[in-house]
């Protein structure tokens, strides 16, 4: 079953009604808060939403209702949103799921959040996450694990597990997450929702607390492809506060249907590559069956489906786990207890650093900082960091080569279904969750996960990957597939 929409409507329909003055934003926000209570979105059960301020959200809704602002386009008027806890917001804390930032409230707001607000969205909560976005299950949050609303004994995926779970539980129609190696797409797959990782540079990182800057990208989670496209349209675009944000025009991403052509075969002009490296023999046969069925749909929609190869795929996880920790070791150096966040004083500055950082960071963060420090240190820099950069270039080249032949790629999002809480304790096994997603981060290309069906009641995600700034074609294919699958996507 797909998430039950708030007041029976998508985000786009809610916003339209609110903007037209026929539905008060207050009603929508109240419905979201009621749903959150009903499903136990807070720490009492799902633990998807860490911080919330109902009064602030209702106040904001009241402001929208008082000043409808008919002359301002407000494509998300009154739409309640959850924002991952590593994205800076006013009023609500921004803790990155870490003790290190317990109680920290940012004095400024992320560009993506500011754009959501300008579009009329109302922030109702901050999404739980693996500490500093390091994890694939949202079990590594200092504030406790998030449960998967589909099966509360299982993980929602991660690191944007709180945002994905909030959408899956119907608390909000859209949420912001962030990606470094699959942290939006993997939880989207596990929770049966849509998750987009945009092209690197498409969305400003200003206000996204950095994990691995060259890979990080804010992404969106939504119940439908159209709502995801709508949210992405709002937050995308050049930002002078992020030097890596792309000076690339943001096209209209919705409506995402083919503008012309055969309605029954809307993908007739497109070719879809199915890379064999993403369908290993180890892939669970029933997952494979759902994915094959999705490929059949793509073919029926008119697309030419082709077997293709991305030969360096297997190197993505080891490459990722050199580069991401390397950047993290530097990005997380600012958490030193000097200016903000937790300080555990010791005798002298060195001791204060050591105590603050060893007690403020959890074990997975500590592991990655140590790993990253090691691979950047003199004597190992060439063997690890430099080598990984070279492999990264090869992975990007794989995509460049394959996109000379096909418009988009279709793959599984994850190698497994959502696993039970506590089931994966070996860090390396956990790292393998990223095997199909980290490639797109390393190459910087856009990718998304769409629900393609269920196995034993657990969602299976299909991944679409497109060339740089290829979001429009990616979303077209996703929308067509979503429509073709219908309720099959959630059965």
């Amino acid at each position, binding site marked *: 079953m797909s998430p039950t929409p708030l007041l029976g409507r998508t985000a786009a329909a809610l916003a339209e009604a609110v903007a037209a003055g026929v539905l008060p934003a207050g009603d929508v926000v109240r419905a979201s808060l009621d749903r959150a209570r009903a499903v136990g979105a807070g720490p009492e059960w799902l633990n998807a939403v860490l911080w919330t301020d109902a009064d602030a959200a209702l106040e904001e809704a009241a402001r929208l209702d008082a000043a409808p602002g008919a002359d301002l386009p407000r494509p998300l008027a009154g739409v309640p949103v959850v924002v991952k806890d590593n994205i800076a917001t006013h009023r609500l804390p921004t803790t990155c799921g870490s003790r290190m*930032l317990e109680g920290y409230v940012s004095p400024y707001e992320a560009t993506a959040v500011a754009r959501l607000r300008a579009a009329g969205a109302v922030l109702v909560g901050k999404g739980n996450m693996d500490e500093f976005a390091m994890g694939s299950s949202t079990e590594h949050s200092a504030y406790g694990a998030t449960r998967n609303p589909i099966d509360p004994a299982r993980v929602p995926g991660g690191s944007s597990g709180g945002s994905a779970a909030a959408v899956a539980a119907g608390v909000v129609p859209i949420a912001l997450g962030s990606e470094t190696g699959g942290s939006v797409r993997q939880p989207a797959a596990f929770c049966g929702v849509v998750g987009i990782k945009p092209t690197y540079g498409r969305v400003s990182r200003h206000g996204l607390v950095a994990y691995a800057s060259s890979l990080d990208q804010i992404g969106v989670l939504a119940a439908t492809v159209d709502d995801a496209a709508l949210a992405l349209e709002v937050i995308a675009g050049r930002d002078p506060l992020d*030097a890596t944000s792309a000076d690339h025009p943001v096209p209209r991403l919705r409506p995402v249907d083919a503008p012309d052509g055969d309605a029954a075969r809307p993908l007739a002009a497109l070719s879809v590559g199915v890379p064999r490296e993403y369908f290993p023999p180890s892939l669970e046969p029933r997952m494979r069956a759902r994915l094959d069925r999705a490929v059949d749909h793509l073919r029926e929609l008119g697309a030419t489906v082709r077997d293709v190869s991305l030969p360096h795929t297997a190197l993505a996880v080891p490459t990722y786990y050199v580069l991401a920790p390397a950047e993290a070791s*530097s990005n*997380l150096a600012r*958490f030193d207890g000097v200016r*903000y966040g937790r300080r555990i004083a010791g005798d002298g*500055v060195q001791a204060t650093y050591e105590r603050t950082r060893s007690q403020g960071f959890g074990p997975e963060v500590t592991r990655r900082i140590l790993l990253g420090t090691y691979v950047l240190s*003199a004597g190992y820099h060439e063997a690890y*960091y430099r080598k990984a950069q070279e492999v990264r270039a090869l992975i990007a080249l794989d995509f460049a080569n394959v996109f000379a032949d096909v418009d988009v790629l279709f793959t599984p999002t994850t190698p497994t279904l959502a696993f039970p809480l506590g089931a994966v304790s070996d860090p390396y096994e956990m790292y393998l969750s990223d095997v199909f997603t980290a490639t797109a981060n390393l190459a910087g290309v856009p990718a998304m996960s769409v629900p393609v069906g269920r196995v034993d009641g657990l969602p299976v995600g299909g991944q679409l990957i497109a060339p740089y700034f290829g979001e429009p074609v990616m979303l077209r294919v996703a929308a067509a597939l979503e429509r073709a699958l219908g309720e099959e996507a959630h059965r």
Partner: protein
Amino acid sequence: MSAPAAPASRAWADRYEMVVGLEVHVQLATATKLFCNCPTTFAAPPNANTCPVCLALPGTLPTLNAHAVELAVRAALALGCTVHPLSVFARKNYFYPDLPKGYQISQFDRPLATGGQVAIGESPEGAPLVAAVTRVHLEEDAGRSIHDRFDDATAVDLNRAGVPLIEIVGEPDLRSSAEAGAYLRVVRQVVQYVGASAANMEEGSLRVDANVSTRRRGDTGLGTKVEIKNMNSFSAVERALEVEFARQCALREARRPIAQQTMLWDATSETVRPARSKEDSHDYRYFADPDLPPLVLTSEWIEARRAALPELPAARRARLREQFALGGRETEVLTGDPRLADYFESVARVHGDARAAANWVLRDVLAAMNDAGLSLAEFELRVRPADLAALLDLVRDGSLSHTAGARVFAAMVRTGEPPSRIVEREGLRQVTDDAQLGAWVDAVLAAHADEVRRFAAGERKLQGFLVGQVMKRSGGTADPRRVTALLLERVDGR
């Protein structure tokens, strides 16, 4: 303590040679910081010039200040460097309370510019001495840790954190403290000329670290290098080099090893002592900063900056020598500060007599600035070049004597008024006392008996000459009308 070092080092200088390379950090004269919009004003209250970016709050990102790039490129070009079309910002990672991000954004293996040179004078044989510049790169400054503000804590002031710097790394081409001093003066002058920096050591906008090694004369290899920091003036640099040279020579004489380390100059005791931090064991784990794209400059842009460079000191010295027939020492002093040379050129152009302008600027102006404790900018507010030129005009045409001119000048410096107003107001105490005036007239009549005779005989146009002689004798202070009356009285008996 310092006294024995100098003679001893002279003795050692026969056997050993000092080898010095300097690292000069220059603060770029931008209004805002390198990666955020905070002001760079000096002496603001602690942490007033900070924002989420330079405080390294979670989620903030650096954005490059284009003006800093422009100034850095100007300085690099003026130092004769090749500016690269692509350079890369890198993170230098280390923990320190005044380093908010836990890394400094600098440039490492792809610097902005490389391969310049600095002309530092001439060898005793007259050959030009040149020191090579290895590289010029852009980086941000750190904040300041203040250890003496509170008894039980170190205070951190982040006003300076993120202020744009260039580091000018010199080759180990300098062979004496005097050469080091000359190098520094030229570098300072060049960056000031191109407007890249105020380069003021007192305010910390120019800082120098020295790498010093020694070797036996005739050897060509490099000895173990010792880095010296914490010098707060050019003369401190020169003194520190002498002291360190003596220390290393003494170690060599005693056949003891010279440790590679960082030393701090202590200006009070005039000694160097090892820095406490394990500076040399740091592994900075440099890597390209993923928050900043490579800095790409087109060759057209670079060439436009080169074309827009002002006349550089060496070229200006040559032109001043040529155009105004000035001496080497005079051009040296004038070009020591580009604004002083500008001032001179303005006065000379308006007044016309470059010799007089040079004399006044180099003697009276510098002395007045020194006496009144004025910077040239402050001085210029009081005595504009046109006013000084007007004063020189009055002196040249005899309206004022040199003595009276000097008095007017002093009043100009004091009050900021133009010379005409001062001469008029003070009448320059025009002498109206008939006894004094009569004495001057009598002296002129006695000295110019021939003209007096012709004047009395009716050659009335000589009246002006005779009055002028009296004026001259009075140093321009006599009242010309009264002088005329007295003259006619004496000659015509009226």
